[in-house]
């Protein structure tokens, strides 16, 4: 039934566009911190979240991605720990890459999307499909790329944004960008604090112990001199969250995160050769307090140093090769994992051949060394065939993996030091349609995974991870956009739909917390200085038990936004507001954890 409704919706509005990027024209004035992302992804879908969407993202990356892509999020109550499921894979099988550097936690293997500040980067790209060869461990279902752009143009812009929302939510951010022909810098700061004490509808209760606050500071800079470009990127994030209870159990828990990321890149171009050297240092720390009133806490931290050298060579206009050597050293330490370290050396070879103006194919290879795992040769193949100006066909296939995280290996009790990487093969085929105002992509995917790490009680009754589970994921995705204007009336519509089967092979049942259906839609209308938007998100029913007997109902949530721009000395001042959960629906994203009732946000945005 829900599917039928989706179909009707699709046909009725018939409106969608392409969220697909082809190989981007490279402007000499823009320095790319991760050129391989777009260069070697011809056969993949790259969905770029627009600046205007990012600028309007208030709280967290979870919201941005949840409402604008097919990725499903499992959020333990609003603002709490949030993990992504990309094409039905688990949270550790979605790689998050910051300026080419993988930033999933070394401790948990995953990223909590409520700990990424949405204004700390300029470009957000979602790459669907396995990218293990190019991006390493965890790029199984897909990867999310956060890039800072360094632009060598004469400019100086500042942006201030201030907002207030229901549940005593305050947020503000500031961004300054200044650059010239041979240098660039930006500085951004963001802070948010919320009591987050929303009402549980029909329950006569509030979301207790859900307050959170976080702050982020980022700095990016670059210099250009002859054939050399150097850039420096730095990001600091700190969050302090109480962890909400559930309908049946109160909570006094508190969780603190702190991350720093620093990266230096040096690019040297000579003729057809390009050398890119990167040195990165990542630091992450968490602190968990079972009872925020007490002093007792558990903690874990990790320091990662990445040194990476990339050599690009254009054999001809049509044949491009990139070789990459990467050395990663991780030191982890914590209440439950002792002190441990890991070294990994990776060698990567990427190639692309434009056989004709219509047909391009590429290959990707990665071999890792040094660490204690069996390191399979990871590979990827992709191709794109531009059959006509309105229809493109793209395919990719790859072998990917996910290495065990420090918690899996060393957790006391239960950690299993003989764990091996999770293994995965995937294939993905896409059809892109371009009809001017209307662009659409339909993709089908298949992922077969083995040796998945699963925590289960061992013979002594202690929970311990083993490489045991096997899954098979398949499904299809649709994304489309439609743009139209009549004089000054502008309309746009975006729609994303995913049908996902993720089967636990042992039981022949759908994995828990993977909805069969996910649908997002955004309708926007603007006239002169006024804009309105209507956004809906539908998550289908999910199973909460592995035998699929326990279910959590699906839900649809709608948001309504409006904004008006006035100009002060030609500088735009945008005044906006939103009604979230417009129809005041009760819903749970994770069982027994209600999400917010209807709530309001007001903000101003001033650029000068």
């Amino acid at each position: 039934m829900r599917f039928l409704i989706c179909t009707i919706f699709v046909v009725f509005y018939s409106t969608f566009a392409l969220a697909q990027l082809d190989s981007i024209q490279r402007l000499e004035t823009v320095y790319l911190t991760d050129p391989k992302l777009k260069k070697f992804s011809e056969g993949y879908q790259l969905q770029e979240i627009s600046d205007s969407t990012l600028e309007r993202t208030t709280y967290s990356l979870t919201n941005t991605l949840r409402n604008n892509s097919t990725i499903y999020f499992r959020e333990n109550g609003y603002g709490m720990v949030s993990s992504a499921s990309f094409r039905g894979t688990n949270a550790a099988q979605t790689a998050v890459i910051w300026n080419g550097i993988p930033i999933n936690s070394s401790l948990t293997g995953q990223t909590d999307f409520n700990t990424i500040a949405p204004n700390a980067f300029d470009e957000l790209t979602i790459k669907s499909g396995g990218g293990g060869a190019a991006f390493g461990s965890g790029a199984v279902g897909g990867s999310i790329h956060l890039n800072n752009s360094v632009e060598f143009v004469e400019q100086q812009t500042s942006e201030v944004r201030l907002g207030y929302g229901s549940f005593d939510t305050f947020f503000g951010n500031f961004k300054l960008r200044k650059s010239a022909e041979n240098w660039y810098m930006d500085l951004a700061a963001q802070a948010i604090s919320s009591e987050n004490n929303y009402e549980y509808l029909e329950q006569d209760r509030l979301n207790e112990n859900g307050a959170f606050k976080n702050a982020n500071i980022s700095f990016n800079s670059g210099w250009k001199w002859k054939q050399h470009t150097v850039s420096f990127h730095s990001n600091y994030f700190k969050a302090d969250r109480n962890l909400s209870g559930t309908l049946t159990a109160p909570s006094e828990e508190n969780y603190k995160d702190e991350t720093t990321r620093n990266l230096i890149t040096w690019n040297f171009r000579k003729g057809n050769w390009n050398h890119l050297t990167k040195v990165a240092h990542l630091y992450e720390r968490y602190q968990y307090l079972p009872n925020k009133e007490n002093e007792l806490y558990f903690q874990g931290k990790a320091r990662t140093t990445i040194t990476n050298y990339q050599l690009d060579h254009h054999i001809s206009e049509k044949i491009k090769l990139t070789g990459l050597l990467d050395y990663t050293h991780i030191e982890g330490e914590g209440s439950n994992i002792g002190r441990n370290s890991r070294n990994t050396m990776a060698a990567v070879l990427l190639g692309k051949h434009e056989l004709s103006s219509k047909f391009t194919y590429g290959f990707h290879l990665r071999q890792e060394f040094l660490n204690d795992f069996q390191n399979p040769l990871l590979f990827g193949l992709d191709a794109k065939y531009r059959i006509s100006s309105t229809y493109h066909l793209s395919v990719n296939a790859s072998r990917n993996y996910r290495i065990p995280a420090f918690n899996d290996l060393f957790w006391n009790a239960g950690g299993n030091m003989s764990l091996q990487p999770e293994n995965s093969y995937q294939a993905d085929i896409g059809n892109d349609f371009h009809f001017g105002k209307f662009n659409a992509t339909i993709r089908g995917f298949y992922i077969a995974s083995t040796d998945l790490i699963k925590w289960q009680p061992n013979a002594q009754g202690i929970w311990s991870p083993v490489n045991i589970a096997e899954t098979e994921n398949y499904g299809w995705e649709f994304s489309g956009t439609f743009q139209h204007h009549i004089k000054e009336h502008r309309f746009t519509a975006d729609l994303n739909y995913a049908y996902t089967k993720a089967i636990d092979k042992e039981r022949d049942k759908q994995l828990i917390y993977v909805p069969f259906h996910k649908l997002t839609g955004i309708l926007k209308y603007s006239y002169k200085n006024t804009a309105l938007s209507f956004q809906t998100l539908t998550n289908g029913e999910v199973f909460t038990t592995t035998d699929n007997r326990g279910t959590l109902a699906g839900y649809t949530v709608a948001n309504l936004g409006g904004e008006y721009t006035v100009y002060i000395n030609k500088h735009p001042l945008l005044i906006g507001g939103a009604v979230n959960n417009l129809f005041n629906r009760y819903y749970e994203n994770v069982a027994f954890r209600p999400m917010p009732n209807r709530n309001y946000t007001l903000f101003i945005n001033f650029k000068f």
Partner: protein
Amino acid sequence: MNLIKKISYLLAITIISSACSSDDDAGNVIDDTPQGDFDNGILVTNEGPFGTGTGTVSFITEDLSTVEEQIFQTVNGSDLGNIVQSLGFYEDQAYIVANNSSKITVVNRYTFEEIAVIENDLENPRYFLTVGDTGYVTNWGDPFDNSDDYVAVIDLETQTVSSTIPVSFGPERLVANGDKLYVAHSGGFDYNNVVSLIDTNSNTVDTTITVGDVPNSVVLDGVNLWVLCGGKPAFTGNESNGSMYQINTATDIVSQSFDFGATDHPSNLVFDASDLYYGLNGEVYQMKTIASGLPTSSVLSGSYYSLTANDGKLYATDAADFQSSGTLKVFDLLDFSEITSLEMGIIPGGVYFNN
């Protein structure tokens, strides 16, 4: 409600059944009219998913032919709470203990209609037992604090906590002998090695008896208290062997003890007729109360989450992957043949006889 019946409830609570339970069945013939949908049958507490969600109670008819799930939810339309740890009886009432929710739901044991909810002065409650007209509930307090553990005294008329008895950390299962209450301290999140003896006349701790590490289960055989100690697991870095302690209830002194192998960690001690049963390394062992040593061969294979022995049958629960329906297997204690296997809720952990 005859006296024998009352006593058998007490025994059932502590997962003990004595030889008199067969007499009890004979006595039931007189007043066997069901007093509600759930009279004459078996109640199984299912902890429910950890972290989020609710536990449930399943009902099994006496002939083990049918199972009714989530009976509390069905009758009352509400939830019992997170981690339904255990259940206890008092007269017509059942006390259902939800550990993580820190509450006890009082229901009519035959109709399962809610009577009261006890929430004040409970913190991480574990097990419930009555002595006379008073209820006792072990509480961990803050599980990371070893100094705030207590036994809550429940006024069964007002359904409130009337006082608390501070005890050593990690109080878990309890058994009563006359006016004496024995509390085994497995240690909660930590590891303890004592049994507290509470005088229920004064509601004070009389003495603490040192036993092996991690006393996880206790039973009375009529004369002696048997305490099964799991020992500290290997991951503590300070592994200790399991052990079985026998305490004479006349003197409250350890009369004998048996050590398991250095890496053996037994659990789930239960008693029926004149035999003790427990689980170890994926096997179930039977031990005579008059035995001079630990048994060397098992009677049954299988790793079970909980064991309950009653009236010639062994009830063994399997929590499977802890994220889906578990099962209850019933074995005949004469020949250890499997009588039946029934599907339960998530993490079935306690079996109680409602007759």
